[in-house]
């Protein structure tokens, strides 16, 4: 059952989302995820997936090279640090401008095709950018070493040399590391969520869903699909660019590996795992994957022995060796299993699971009066 979407319900959703994000250090602490480095990643990759979802979730175009915008955003931000100083605001402005330009160029060409051909084109562009960043573009990207800020850089607004300490991004004197770094990222995630929510509810968003549904009918209805898909591509590219910029803000360096296809694949996983086409799903997916990456990969044989120490030795040894496959270096295996389970049993991702659970609860309760939803409730969010 779809509940009615109104400006009020959206406002409520936005307020709850904001509170949940800002309170993350509190409610994530009990599961061992309440430390700033991981929280920053939640916010940054949440933003990345949120933007990816505007393209993939609404229009159905599966970009397999979205990490290129993450990389471009990072490089642009580091260049802003080098040229203008360590303020994160011009850095993010650089990220936005350059990722938008890249998205415009790559989108313009890739969107000439759809389906698998579109995916392959975006993948090709991303791998091309990755290889260029490693080789011929070394003067700009500093190749394998990665781009970093040096004491000798001009930094026009800070004035170079005035600062001999470690080069950390500062907003009005506040260092963009630790919790303050997290809150800076969190604010941008919240802004991103608001924009995404507006797009989902707008006529523009409805047209993007129409692209996914039937492009043929769309053009015979007098709508030009190309600018719609290109606009969605550029918007989602800019989200990725800002996410890349934030990676550089919290840790001022940029490397080519950020553009590798594995990074592009990761955002696809995040979005599908959480629920493509839903507002919250991609953020949940991003959080879950980053959580697994950090928590499960930190387990080792000692911690497993500690966990299973209650078992008799004969059983403990095989249990530990089997469980050992799924943690540490093997955390990808856990992720793969989880992904398979979700795709097979919950094609709509975690959000579909949550919806099913809430349905069970609403059935057991006495039914509140359900007027037929006059709102074109797009997807259950």
């Amino acid at each position, binding site marked *: 059952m779809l509940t009615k979407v109104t400006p009020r319900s959206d406002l409520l959703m936005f307020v709850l989302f904001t509170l949940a994000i800002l309170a993350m250090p509190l409610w994530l602490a009990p599961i061992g995820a309440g430390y700033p480095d991981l929280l920053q990643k939640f916010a940054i990759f949440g933003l990345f997936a949120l933007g990816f979802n505007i393209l993939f979730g609404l229009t159905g175009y599966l970009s397999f090279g979205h990490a290129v915008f993450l990389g471009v955003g990072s490089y642009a931000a580091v260049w802003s640090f080098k040229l203008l100083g360590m303020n994160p605001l011009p850095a993010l402005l650089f990220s936005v401008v350059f990722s938008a330009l890249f998205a415009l160029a790559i989108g313009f060409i890739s969107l000439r095709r759809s389906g698998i051909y579109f995916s392959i084109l975006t993948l090709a562009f991303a791998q091309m950018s990755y290889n260029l960043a490693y080789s011929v573009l070394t003067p700009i990207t500093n190749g394998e070493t990665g781009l970093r800020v040096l004491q000798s850089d001009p930094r026009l607004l800070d004035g170079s040399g005035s600062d001999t300490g470690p080069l950390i991004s500062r907003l009005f004197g506040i260092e963009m590391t630790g919790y303050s770094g997290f809150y800076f990222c969190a604010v941008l995630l919240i802004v991103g969520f608001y924009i995404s929510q507006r797009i989902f509810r707008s006529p523009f*968003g*409805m047209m993007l869903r129409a692209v996914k549904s039937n492009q043929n009918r769309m053009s015979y209805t007098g709508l030009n699909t190309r600018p719609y898909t290109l606009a969605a591509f550029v918007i989602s590219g800019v989200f990725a660019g800002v996410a890349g910029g934030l990676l550089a803000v919290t840790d001022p360096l940029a490397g080519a590996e950020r553009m590798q296809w594995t990074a592009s694949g990761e955002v696809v996983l995040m979005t599908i795992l959480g629920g493509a086409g839903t507002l919250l799903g991609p953020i949940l997916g991003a959080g879950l994957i980053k959580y697994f990456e950090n928590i499960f990969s930190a387990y080792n044989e000692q911690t497993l022995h500690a966990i299973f120490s209650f078992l008799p030795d004969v059983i403990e040894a095989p249990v530990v060796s089997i469980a050992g496959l799924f943690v540490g270096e093997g955390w990808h295996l856990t992720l793969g299993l989880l992904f398979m389970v979700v795709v097979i049993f919950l094609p709509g991702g975690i959000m579909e699971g949550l919806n099913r659970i809430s349905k069970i609860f609403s059935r057991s309760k006495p039914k509140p009066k359900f007027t037929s939803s006059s709102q074109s409730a797009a997807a259950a969010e």
Partner: protein
Amino acid sequence: MEILNVSNVNKRFGGLKALDEVNLSVEQGHVHAIIGPNGAGKSTLLNCFVGRLIPDSGSVTFLGKDLIGAKPHEINQIGVSRVFQTPEIFGDLTLLDNIMIPTLAKRDGAFSLNAWARVDGLGEIRDKALHMLEDVGLAEKKGMIADSLSRGDKRRLELAMCLVQDPKLLLLDEPTAGMSRADTNNTIDLLKRIGERGITKIVIEHDMHVVFSLASKISVLAQGTVIAEGKPEDIKGDPRVQEAYLGGAHV
């Protein structure tokens, strides 16, 4: 007044001559039926009107504007809508969305970056769409997902999507194919009612019952050429038409 002019249109698919020097003139306000045996080139001709196919030679003009080489969305924006043989609808959107999208396309043009407005704030567009759904008898199903409709309802939905744009010319490709007799009669009534709005229509149809209850002029197409043209009563008795249909039956 002439609304659509087709002159000397040719179209080849490899060795097959699908359209051979086709000439057609459609008058404003008329219901012009195009009939003919299977493979006569009826759908090919329609595809040349909406930008799906480009003829090899000849010209197609709509209210004096050249349609050849124009994109489908441009042709729709100047007032030509089309109903397809298999309904083309937005299958995973609600019926209301299905109607609101063409209504918006009519108001805002081929592209509008309307990302800050809210769909639930579009009162006027919504009212117009609801009205349209009432007209075709689908108002109660407005919140349903379009793919869950029956085939007959899908056709009515598609027709509503075209009508809500107040087209100047409506192209109907076998609007009753695969429908029961009752559904067919409903559709005929619906088409007659919209006829009162003065929309010019071109209908491709196999069902002679439909053709003779709607059309004010009929062109008979066989093997890519127009073999007869005239009022329904003239066409009924024309030996060439009977020949074409019977001849088609042997092959």
